[in-house]
């Protein structure tokens, strides 16, 4: 169950962060595109949380899992919960996340669990689109103006340490493929790929998050929790 929950929480937290761009994106087309990606993430989160609840067998549905767990019970990776102070950080996060999700979903689509593979089959196509979108912007910003190059490189450098957590344990084998997806984009964007081997924060999959997540959840859950047991 933790495995499915991790995927679902990644998607839910990513959706929440992406939706914050709604009505404040750099251009109107981007409002539409980011809302679209947020909707895809939210859709995947709903399917995955529902399934996680069924696996648990304690009667928790998607809303019980989304709204009534604290940050110590969330299983998302740290990358998705980090704040997004500018559009470059958002795009770097999306680049790293969508490349990872694409590989994870492709793998799951082909794996044994029928239920998961149905979700993954849909989600991998969406991830491929998210990756395209993030790649496009990474290249535009990396190879745009000196300012955009500086911001994009800074975002990549800042977030890189958090990408190690994605390939903890079983998933280590996916990192080489991920590196080749991401490196191709960074190269085209005239950006420098950070060196590996440094700081590698983790803990999200065990519920040990950054101080940012509890704020995000406070906002996400405030209304639902204020009316215990209500239907919406």
């Amino acid at each position: 169950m933790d495995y499915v929950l991790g995927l679902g929480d990644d998607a839910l937290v990513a959706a929440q962060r992406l939706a914050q761009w709604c009505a404040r994106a750099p251009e109107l087309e981007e409002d539409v595109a980011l809302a679209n990606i947020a909707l895809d993430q939210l859709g995947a989160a709903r399917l995955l949380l529902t399934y996680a609840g069924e696996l648990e067998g304690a009667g928790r549905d998607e809303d019980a899992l989304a709204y009534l767990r604290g940050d110590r019970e969330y299983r998302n990776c740290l990358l998705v919960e980090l704040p997004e102070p500018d559009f470059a950080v958002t795009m770097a996060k999306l680049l790293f996340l969508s490349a990872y999700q694409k590989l994870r979903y492709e793998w799951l689509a082909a794996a044994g669990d029928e239920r998961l593979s149905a979700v993954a089959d849909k989600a991998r196509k969406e991830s491929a689109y998210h990756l395209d979108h993030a790649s496009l912007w990474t290249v535009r910003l990396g190879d745009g103006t000196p300012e955009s190059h500086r911001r994009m490189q800074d975002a990549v450098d800042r977030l890189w340490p958090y990408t190690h957590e994605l390939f903890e344990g079983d998933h280590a084998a996916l990192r080489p493929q991920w590196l080749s997806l991401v490196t191709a984009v960074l190269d085209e964007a005239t950006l420098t790929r950070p060196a590996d081997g440094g700081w590698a924060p983790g803990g999200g999959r065990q519920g040990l998050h950054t101080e940012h997540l509890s704020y995000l959840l406070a906002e996400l859950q405030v209304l639902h929790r204020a009316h215990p047991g209500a239907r919406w």
Partner: protein
Amino acid sequence: MPDPYRLGLIRQIAQHAHSEIIGMQPEGNWISRAPSLKRKAILLAKVQDEAGHGLYLYAAAETLGVSRSDLVDQLLTGRQKYSSIFNYPTLTWADVGTIGWLVDGAAIVNQVPLCRCSYGPYARAMIRICKEESFHQRQGFEILHTLAHGTPAQRAMAQDAVNRWWYPSLAMFGPPDTASTHSEQSMTWKIKRFSNDELRQRFVDMCVQQATVLGLSLPDPDLRWNAERDHYDFTQPDFHELMRVISGDGPCNRQRLEHRRRAHEEGAWVREAAAAYAAKRAAREPAGV
């Protein structure tokens, strides 16, 4: 196309486009806090639709020979207006439902006639927009219906929101016919087809019946059926308040425009980067390929 007709159309389409863009804010205010994942998805999709409507409408205006960046500039500098309804705050989740029910409802009553207006590109945009708006209106109604049939706190929240949005929604039809400046000319040009007061009456008649289904009351003690007129009698909104809000002194005028300006400014480096990249690409590629 005579210039006054063209300028009147541009004014009307631009104002409509700006309203869609500014209208993203009051509802967007609740996306992060929507009380279930399903409602979150529906609301996010709705606000996304508004951005989409803004895009079609700017495109329709561009067929009349103005540029989108000029129109955006006119919005940001306050030279062109947007619908005053978006200068009220969304204080609770029930406001999201009420905006869907009343505000989108009023917008549809206003806009359906425009689907047959005399300028093709505008009429076509309106057909698509009205279809989506009636979908949004149903979703808003459904939110309110759930609240009105929920816990006492939810029910109170729904009634409170309806109380606050009722008169501002009536004001969406503009000043009374006796005082409207643009209406007569617009009707002659067939970019408007019914008078403000006709549309307002149509809206009131519609809402009274829907409010009964919701089990919520409308905050007008004088609202009653008039068999002679075959319409409901009702209290007019405070048109002085409407004028104050239009002239910039509503509760959120400054906040909405400032939010939009800030988004525009904070996005400048991104748009510049995209332009610089496109220019580099163009320069790299051999001409004509």
